[in-house]
């Protein structure tokens, strides 16, 4: 455990000196928080004067999500907000990729892995240290952004029904459970990709393909093919657990002393 903490501290000391990474970690969550707030503000403002949107204007599937006793405007807002849920889920995917790519490729180009592997650290400790160093900021920033978003909701005058929905099970599962699971998968993917390429930006771009499934969900929802509700979220979490198991397995197989020194080019 002591070794893992040493590695985490070392990773953070190094990675937070990199402006590119720092920008990614701080700026992206901020954007993803402010954007939905602004959207919500304008949808509630613009429609305040008008008569309520009829429920007929809201995609049919959404009415099920909104449930009874909710106005058409509120349901419309929930529909809009649900798109942003996926943005919040991008945070724990993108941040670990950035940190892990710069860290691993950096170690490869400066040849600093060999002296590190010559110490009595176990490869498990090293992998765990690197993974946590990349995943923790992502999880924390994801939660932080969501907290900021929740604080902002009453300020911009969001109705109680919408806030209720956002603090409901679907969102909490997404932010508290799915987010960390995705961070774990994304770290391992980034480590795998970084072991093969020598440019952190290339590693980042390849690993970032991982956001495609999320974008897929986003467009599927926009197109009305699916609606993200508790069931969808639970099955997503279930498959993420499987993906994590596979990715951690992949991570540990490539993360062996001999492999790192002789096969990572």
């Amino acid at each position, binding site marked *: 455990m002591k070794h893992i903490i040493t590695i985490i501290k070392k990773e953070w000391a190094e990675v937070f000196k990199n402006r590119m990474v720092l920008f990614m970690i701080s700026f992206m969550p901020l954007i993803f928080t402010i954007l939905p707030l602004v959207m919500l503000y304008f949808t509630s403002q613009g429609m305040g004067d008008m008569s309520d949107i009829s429920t007929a204007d809201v995609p049919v599937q959404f009415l099920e999500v909104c449930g009874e006793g909710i106005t058409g405007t509120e349901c419309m807002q929930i529909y809009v907000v649900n798109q942003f849920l996926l943005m919040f889920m991008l945070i724990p995917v993108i941040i670990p990729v950035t940190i892990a790519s710069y860290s691993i490729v950096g170690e490869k180009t400066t040849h600093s892995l060999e002296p590190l592997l010559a110490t009595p650290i176990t490869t498990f400790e090293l992998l765990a240290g690197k993974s946590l160093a990349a995943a923790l900021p992502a999880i924390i920033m994801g939660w932080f952004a969501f907290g900021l978003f929740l604080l902002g909701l009453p300020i911009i005058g969001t109705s109680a029904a919408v806030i209720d929905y956002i603090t409901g099970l679907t969102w909490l599962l997404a932010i508290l459970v799915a987010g960390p699971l995705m961070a774990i998968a994304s770290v391992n993917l980034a480590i795998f990709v970084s072991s093969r390429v020598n440019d952190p930006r290339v590693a980042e771009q390849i690993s970032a393909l991982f956001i495609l499934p999320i974008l897929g969900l986003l467009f599927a929802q926009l197109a009305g093919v699916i609606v993200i509700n508790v069931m969808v979220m639970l099955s997503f979490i279930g498959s993420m657990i499987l993906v994590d198991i596979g990715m951690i397995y992949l991570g540990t197989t490539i993360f062996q002393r*001999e492999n790192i020194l002789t096969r990572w080019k």
Partner: protein
Amino acid sequence: MCLDLIQEMIETKDLTKIFTIKKAADIPAVVGLTLSVAEGEVFGFLGPNGAGKTTTVRMLTSLIGPTSGTARVNGFTVGEADQDIRRSVGILTESPGMYERLSASKNLDIYAHLYDVADVDGQVDKYLRMLGLWSRRDDPVGSFSKGMRQKLAIARALLHEPQLLFLDEPTSGLDPEAARLVRSFIQELRDQGRTIFMCTHNLNEADRLCDRIGIFKSRLIEVDTPENLRKKLFGRKVVFHLREVHPGWLDPIRELEGVLDLQIVDKKLVIAMDNPDILNPQIIRALVQSGADILFVGELRHSLEDIYLQTMRDTAEEEVAG
């Protein structure tokens, strides 16, 4: 622990590493290496680039596994007690591999923790001072010269006070002044009684620093003290500088027991022999009796470079022949 009882710090038997690469021929990097290094010894592992020196060090520090053969390091068996080996040896890797954005002391601090050093700050301070990096301790390593990085890497290898040190080409790529500093520091380590296994392709360095030298190119070609290597390959030669040389003087010398070869170069006699202590006085007496004026007598010393080139040539010939 029974470290006191261990005589050999490194013992290998038929140690072999063959790299297999997809769609390419196997690379026999190290073949059948049998070797032992005693406690307190400075062992020079001498060979050209690509000889397999780094691969050997990696096997002996439990970084990569051998294809076959065995090795014991510090009393621990490679492949069985890898953690113990890593804990008990120090290694200067081929490239320093420092964290460039972090300060010198931060770099050492990380390693002191990874080596479970008890007094982290004390050890870091000690070695920063000892290697003359104290005033630059807070500067990022990215701003360091090559020589400073190398010194920092040596400090890093010593934090946990290992009795056995592996140095992979410690002076390669350094300017002469930095190389001199590093060499004198290795001398200090040797005086402290540490066992050192040093890879080098610098013959002079091996000659000056090492108790024994192994000449290596995938296989171990020769192992001995620098002195014996010279003898073994060339015998010993003594040069007699004379004012003049008369062919008639030479016959009595040729007849002396133990003279292996005699050549005349300008006004010098170059005589190959096994035992100059006995023969030199006899030769001098014979020459004086013949009326020769002896100006100066000296032993012809071969540089290690000659030996090295000679061995490499012999091996190449054997390879062609065999």
